[in-house]
């Protein structure tokens, strides 16, 4: 299998290969990764996503995310200047419901999975200062 170099130095096709030489070459190329994710970014994304990573997981996440972003950068090869972004592929539009009450009191069922409940409410750590 040939090594195919994507735009910023990651060789994805080689990853498919089990040949150790290829793998090594690939690893070398990855050192030149374009998307260097630093500690601050991981910290910041952790705050956004509410995830707390161990030191080891952080290192892993830095390298994983950098590689993925390099890979995603491939999209940059395409000229999309006049292309409208599409979130729904079909033109399904204007889906509405009428303003009619259809739901009754389902409290007991909805609370049944709560880790902690009190007086018909969900208990959370205090939110007021």
């Amino acid at each position: 299998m040939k090594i195919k170099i994507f735009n910023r130095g990651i060789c994805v096709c080689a990853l498919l290969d089990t040949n150790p030489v290829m793998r090594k070459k690939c690893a070398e190329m990855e050192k030149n990764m374009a998307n260097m994710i630093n500690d601050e970014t991981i910290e910041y994304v952790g705050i956004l996503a509410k995830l707390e990573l161990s030191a080891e997981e952080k290192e892993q996440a830095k390298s994983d995310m950098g590689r993925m972003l390099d890979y995603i950068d491939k999209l940059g090869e395409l000229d999309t200047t006049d292309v409208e972004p599409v979130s729904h592929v079909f033109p399904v539009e204007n889906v509405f419901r009428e303003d009619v009450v259809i739901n009754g009191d389902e409290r007991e069922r909805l609370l049944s999975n709560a880790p902690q409940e009190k007086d018909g409410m969900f208990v959370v750590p205090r939110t007021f200062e």
Partner: protein
Amino acid sequence: MSKQYETVIGLEVHVELATKTKIFCGCSTAFGAAPNTQTCPVCTGMPGSLPVLNRQVLEYAIAVGLATNCDITRYSKFDRKNYFYPDNPQNYQISQLYLPICQNGGVEIETEQGGRKIVGIHEIHMEEDAGKLIHDEWEDCSLVDYNRSGVPLIEIVSEPDMRSAEEVIAYMEKLRQVIQYLGASDCKLQEGSMRADVNLSVREAGAETFGTRTEMKNLNSFKAITRAIAGETARQIDLIEAGERVVQETRRWDDAKGESYAMRSKEDAQDYRYFPDPDLTPIRVSEEMLQEIRERQPEFRTEKMARYREEFDIPDYDIDIITGEKPLADLFEAAVALGAQPKKVSNWIMGETLRLMKEREVDAADLRFSPEHLAKLIALTETKQINSSVAKEVFEVMFEENTDPEQYVEEKGLKTVNDEGALKKAAEEVIAANPRSVEDYRNGKEKAIGFLVGQTMKAMKGKADPGAVNRLLREFLQK
């Protein structure tokens, strides 16, 4: 303070829409239910649940947009605003960022100087309300009630066109009036169906560019807004005068303490990662849909004022006040439709109603008495079955409890006594007991008659017609 400063204010006004159900599910929006009894998988963010837009929400939002001179966005979408907080069951709020339903509008307000100005509306978007957090002092935790979660809101974002608290209030009153006319919301500040976040910055008078702004939240009365604007203006000027910088941040106004504090925390990145909600379809507003909504638009204030001038013989000042709040206009028209004389109805609204509303801090939207009862009360006075002071007494009771005035007057025995004999007897007794006043009257002191009338009314326990008493006394005294 040597320099002159100008305050620049923009408003984000949230209005809860008066729909029967929530924006994305069929749960009731009725106020005051037991915690979490008006919830379902959708508005509690259960896994696998999906939102479907309430048509009425869209129609109200478009109606408000049309009434505030906005362009209606013909292709509009919902976006997710991602942030973690327990009152937000999905940890994202469905809102509109990229293609809000209404854009580029404005309303006219009166300025303090008596002039007029346009406050621009940057956009109006639809979104869902959050649940309610209650602090549990005993266990030092918070409790979440999702009854309000998913209640439809529109957020009206103004341009930074206001320069004083007075203009802010004039703008909000204008919005409230328009929205109440549409029936799209009751716009009660105290109950939170209308809320405002104030974006404020200061700059040296005459400066071209804006200063750094802060956003203040938790303002639930006009008084709080006025105080918060004064407080934040002073705080920012102090910072600038001291050579420090204003930080762009969200602040919470503590009205009791009269100060604001920053709401920021390390965990609060303010990066909402908006993206189009894939669970909802785009909205395409057709010309027909727009036309239908346009045709359903009610009579707005200007039209109503013109019609009142034409139809009713009441002063312009009364028209101005009554049409200023939709509930007052509704009350007026309903009572007149029941046969009450317009002038009388207007007098009751302008006089006792406004007095008690002010004294007891009641919003027009919260008035309890029905137009039927007001019309009955007017009929009772017109037919002289009760006198005016009894009528005021009855009205106060009616104002509190929407009591039926006929029934109340009957039960309490407040009807004017038309018994000639009893009245004559009372008058004679008063004349006999007050020789000095009688003397004074006869000597030309016209005022003395008032005292004698009062005494007679007192003897009659207020249940006489004061005019009749007056006539009778004069008759006796001329003898």
